[in-house]
């Protein structure tokens, strides 16, 4: 008898309701050692590696890779040694998924509340095949057709005896190629107009293309050589561009959203539709901050950006106004003792928001280093779940694109997001009534009105402004 344990869909963070088994890294029946990677699980946010907690055998894979299951669902059965199939079957029959709700943030895990245990996951429904079993089609072509939902009945196979190949299905799933050709083209072949004439090779080519007789041209080049310009002068009025003609008309190019794009679309739609946003805007003077940054970078030997100073200011302001340092979960508002500031990073694949944890207790240059590391990981697509999880506030900065000011969509479950614009020079009246150019930065705070009232948001934003305009405090 081997001791059997269920391997269920893990729950990483309070928002995770389901996950996808991206890949099993141990084959069914394969053994593994503590610390080996068992599987890759994909969530809305991230693909995470699951490590074995102890040595064992992957006795049975219940959920094949590619399938999405709710948190707590039985994915596989782990044994401490070789297990009989009958033992595994018996275990499968008695397994009840546990309630795996966990508390968020620093709070202790809530005791598991007994709830009606969901039935063990039903055996995978027989896969509905859209490709007839007896069709002459290669295995990869069949797989592709089923994955993309391509109707193969209309495909004429290019394989032997009309068998359908991968290429046939792949092509059937694409929009038609842009049309090439149209009106008959004139192919220059009469070289008599250029033969035996003193002209540059390009001039001869142009003469052939445009049917210009070089004998009628007096060359302006050295020793009467005919140049490109001489020929083009004859080709009046329009000089055809050598640049390729931009395709006009035809169907639009259709690009299906990838997983990250779909997640961004779903989460932001949900946020914008379900969160009552309100927006607070102001401008902060940054002349002092810019000067201090120059000196601080020299002294600290680092390279903190304006944004790193703003993240630091936001973190301190979040501690000063804890009403903004929150997450909203249904009817509960989670308050945090530290400021976990997420930073919006644009990558090739889309927007990600890694978290600078405990930013209130980090120096500006420590924030700069942490942010730089997170950005590098984001660009490489290697952010871990921990890097992305648990933010209590987000800073999004589009100043580098010359944007003066913008409003951001809240990154749920957080309560607010700060949108930072670029620095601009403004002619401003001074206390003594005189005028002077100042550098200012546009700030816009989006708040979730369910949890944050206007006055709280306003005090918070004013605190950020004070910190930015009195930047020595950022080093306190």
């Amino acid at each position, binding site marked *: 008898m081997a001791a059997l344990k269920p391997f269920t869909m893990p729950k990483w963070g309070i928002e995770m309701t389901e996950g996808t088994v991206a890949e099993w890294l141990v084959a069914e029946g394969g053994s593994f050692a503590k610390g080996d990677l068992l599987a890759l699980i994909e969530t809305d946010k991230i693909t995470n590696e699951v490590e074995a907690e102890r040595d064992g055998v992957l006795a049975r894979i219940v959920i094949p890779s590619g399938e999405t299951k709710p948190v707590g669902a039985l994915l596989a059965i782990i044994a401490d040694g070789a297990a009989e199939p009958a033992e595994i079957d018996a275990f499968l029959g008695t397994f009840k998924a546990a309630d795996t709700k966990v508390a968020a943030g620093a709070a202790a895990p809530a005791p598991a509340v007994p709830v009606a245990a969901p039935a063990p996951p039903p055996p995978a429904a027989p896969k509905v095949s859209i490709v007839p079993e007896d069709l002459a089609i290669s295995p990869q072509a069949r797989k592709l057709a089923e994955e993309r939902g391509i109707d193969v009945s209309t495909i004429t196979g290019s394989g032997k005896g009309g068998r359908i*190949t991968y290429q046939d299905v792949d092509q059937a799933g694409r929009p038609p190629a842009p049309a090439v050709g149209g009106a008959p083209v004139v192919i220059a072949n009469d070289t008599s107009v250029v033969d035996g004439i003193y002209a540059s090779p390009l001039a001869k080519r142009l003469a052939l293309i445009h049917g210009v007789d070089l004998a009628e041209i007096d060359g302006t080049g050295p020793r009467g050589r005919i140049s490109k310009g001489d020929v083009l002068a004859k080709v009046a009025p329009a000089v055809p561009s050598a640049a390729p003609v931009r395709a006009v008309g035809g169907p639009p190019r259709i690009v299906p959203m990838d997983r990250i794009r779909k997640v961004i679309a779903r989460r932001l739609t949900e946020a914008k539709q379900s969160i009552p946003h309100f927006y607070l805007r102001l401008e902060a003077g940054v002349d002092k901050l810019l000067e201090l940054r120059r000196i601080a970078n020299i002294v600290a030997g680092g390279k903190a950006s304006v944004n790193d100073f703003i993240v630091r200011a936001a973190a301190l302001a979040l501690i000063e106004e804890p009403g903004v340092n929150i997450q909203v979960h249904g009817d509960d508002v989670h308050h945090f003792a530290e400021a976990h500031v997420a930073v919006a990073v644009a990558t090739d694949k889309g927007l990600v928001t890694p978290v600078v944890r405990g930013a209130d207790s980090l120096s500006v240059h420590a924030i700069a280093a942490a942010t730089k590391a997170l950005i590098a990981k984001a660009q490489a697509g290697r952010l871990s779940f921990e890097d992305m999880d648990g933010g209590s506030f987000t800073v999004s900065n589009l100043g580098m694109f010359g944007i003066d000011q913008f409003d951001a969509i809240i990154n749920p479950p957080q309560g607010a997001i700060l949108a930072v614009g670029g620095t601009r020079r403004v002619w401003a009246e001074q206390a003594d009534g005189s005028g002077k150019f100042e550098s200012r930065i546009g700030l816009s705070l989006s708040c979730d009105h369910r949890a944050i009232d206007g006055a709280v948001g306003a005090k918070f934003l004013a605190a950020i402004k004070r910190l930015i305009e009195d930047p020595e405090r950022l080093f306190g």
Partner: protein
Amino acid sequence: MAEMMLRDAIVETIRSEMRRDPTVMMLGEDIVGGMGTAGGPEAIGGIWSTSTGLWAEFGGNRIIDTPISESAIIGAAAGAALAGKRPIAELMFADFVGVCMDQIWNQIAKFRYMFGGKSKCPVVIRLVYGAGFNAAPQHSQAVYSMMTSMPGLKVVMPSTPADAKGLLTQAIRDDDPVLFFEHKALYATKGEVPDGDYLIPFGHARLTRAGENATIVTCGMMVGFAEAAADSLAQEGIGCDVIDLRTSSPLDEEAILDSVEVTGRLVVVDESPPRCSLATDIAAMVARKGFASLKAPPELVTAPHSPVPFARELESAYLPSPAKIIDAVRTVLAYR
């Protein structure tokens, strides 16, 4: 199952087919083996020992020792086939197929077509081919690529004793002319051979190694080289499909495309020179029908565009080798 050498599988197959079907006969140079020598018939058993004992059992009317004239051998075989026999003609060296080319590609290959299917010409021409024997340019060539390009002929090249039996049985019973290429270096290869009637239908390749990283397509003696390369690469975690074509005409496109659709990377190993060859034919087919699956340009491991050299060192440089195949697999894997 019995273990035997490839040459014995061929003799045994001919023997059992001659016992089964009285119209099966054989013609070739010195196939009685020793005729006219001091030792007399069967003294040497044919220079390849692929007809040993047949004359003693079936006599001179069915085992015909011919003059040294490939033209006569193939011409006689063609006539006998038209008249209802199932002749097996042996060309001691495939290189001399040139002198009987008119019989093969203007006559044998075209009878069925020209007479609207009313005549058939079930000839098996056994051609002994291949380099590696230090036998110089006129006795070492792999001419199957040339024959593959001719419509009306089936082209077969076994790589194991079992395949030799299954494919030769099919060839003898086939109603179309079959060119049966036997590599001299494989005659002594040992392997298990199924007992009794054993036929391998033409156009069905054999997957001898399975892996997901690259596809190696090959035939004849090159199969063993490809397997050695695949086994060596497997030690590094690189998995290769090795496809033994068995027949180049008909060609098992399906097996090749199915594999390339998984691996995306193709290496073709072919003993013949590289122009207008089996290798280029397969590469072109995959480029056309498997373009969507390819992740790298196909690599060809072939002999150079040169006659087979006589010097041993040059001859081994001429032939494809496991090391060259490994290099080619690395090349297709390195392509980004």
